[in-house]
């Protein structure tokens, strides 16, 4: 099971996680093209919550009890057994935003570039390390794989 853990005490609020998440979910995956050339910019699936000096990167925590999955009316949100993560299929999504209401962490965002669909962290399962973790300059986002989970928590 893949999890990203946010370390509030070293998050510096630079928002580079948001930027690289957007690049990772862009069409070209090139940072300059993703921001300057693509008409419909991708939605970053991580969001930095900030208040004064306190901040942390918030993305899907892949809950063991995924309310978003339970509440999804179209079957777009599903639990992927193979990766142990909650995934979202925009083809099936009807943009009813029920998942957004159900998510008690506020980790699901709206993608209204074309069809209205939900946007959530997919844990970059195709990458060795998720883009936000790889580019966090202060190690405030930590990737935890299954076997390490207990000791970290």
């Amino acid at each position: 099971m893949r999890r990203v853990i946010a370390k509030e005490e070293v998050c510096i609020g630079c928002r580079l996680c948001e930027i690289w998440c957007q690049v990772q979910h862009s069409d070209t995956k090139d940072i300059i093209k993703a921001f300057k050339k693509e008409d419909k910019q991708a939605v970053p699936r991580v969001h930095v919550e900030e208040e004064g000096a306190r901040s942390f990167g918030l993305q899907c925590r892949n809950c063991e009890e995924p309310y978003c999955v339970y509440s999804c009316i179209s079957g777009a949100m599903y639990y992927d057994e193979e990766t142990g993560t909650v995934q979202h299929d925009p083809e099936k999504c009807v943009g009813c935003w029920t998942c957004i209401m159900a998510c008690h962490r506020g980790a699901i965002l709206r993608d209204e570039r074309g069809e209205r669909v939900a946007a959530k962290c997919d844990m970059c399962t195709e990458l060795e390390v998720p883009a936000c973790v790889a580019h966090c300059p202060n190690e405030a986002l930590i990737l935890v794989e299954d076997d390490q989970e207990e000791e970290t928590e």
Partner: protein
Amino acid sequence: MLTHLLPEFKIIRDDERCIRCEVCVRQCGFDVHSYDAEEDMLYADENKCVGCQRCAVMCPTNALTIKPHDYEYRPNANWSKEHIRDLNKQAETGGVILTGSGNDKPYRIYWDHLVLNASQVTNPSIDPLREPMELRTYLGRKPDKVEFDNNQVKVDMPAQVMIETPIIFSALSYGAISYQAWKALLEAADEGGTLCNTGEGGWPHELRPGKTRVIAQCASGRFGVDLDYLNSASIVEIKIGQGAKPGIGGHLPGEKVSADVSRTRMIPEGTDAISPAPQHDIYSIEDLSMLIYALKEATHYEKPISVKISAVHNAPAIASGMVRAGADIIALDGLRGGTGAAPKIIRDNVGIPIELALAAVDQRLRNEGIRNQASILVAGGFRNSGDITKAIALGADAVYVGTAALVAMGCTLCQKCYTGICNWGICTQDPYLSKRLNPEIAKRRLVNLIRGWSLEIKEMLGGMGINALESLRGNRLHLRAIGLDQWELDVLGVRGAGD
């Protein structure tokens, strides 16, 4: 009022690369960058830029270049840009110009005029990767003679502190640097088998358990000094002077005295922490002796007592007095030693280079037959393992590194430590900025630095055919000088190259 000051740095933003992510805006503590949403443009106020390079490092597209501004006055060998700038600043404010970091003036750096020896044909060099190589050093007073009883050494050995490598972290006080930076130094010293110096700002209580690789400083302000503080450390150091500001005290502005700093320093929150220029109970060698023995009593004669002075004209005679007063370690801080805040005119003009002070003090103590009675620590602008190895050959027991440790943690020597704003999270108490230094990352980088330098020192020793640092200590025959005058060779006690 119109300021006559021109910006020091030029900010070049490559608009083809800039993606308007505003990381530069968020990362600059000096508010240089701003985003105009209406124009969708980023602007920079160059007058505020200190050239710390934080924005350039953090920019995800490398769109920023920060370089010294190219404005020029009419060329004048006597009146440099810096002279005119400083003079204007004072004409506008009427104040003393403050600065941070170490002397940046082009005084002769003797390390760059000294070269090391290596073995060829007549004696074998040693490969440290295949053969044992000893960097271990013991700090403290050594006995005058060794007696044997049934092949056992029979001697009362005064307190000794072992370090695995002759590289110690200099005095950087909590208050001047952030909690995160201070913690990183403490933990790196522990992991690297060396020592860190608390500086004069005390030692946070929660960071004491299990940590002993510490030199606890007792400076003129006596901040945070109590029995537990002294006895938690391995060495206690009386600070008389600092290389960056000989003869000058310290002044930590009230803004930096946060609740935590106040608790650690044992002073009210928000008050200025003023360290007097002299220690007011030390006006003579006899007074110094009284404090040394007071500290020895307080620590049950279990810890070496160090006395730190800035390298000044009479350093050898003063050092001799310090040893005779009971100091077990002599720390010398040279002309290029760093600071969190000092008057620029003092930093740039007072004191002598550490190379000359070290050679003179070592020679004086040897001439007087008391060199064994104290270890010598030297500080002040050591940049690499070559400088350190040369210092050992000149007679040092170990070397203090402060600026080098800061650079390892991210410092770019922008010299704005005295403002309380540090974009790298090192020299600040602002929680938004200090978070930028992750103590884990900083510790890792510091431990890497110690490891890398130690490996290099071993390589140099091996090349000289030596397998223990002890054999190089004070062995000036392994040094030769290039491009120095006779008087400098005499002071350094080194022969010219080819001689």
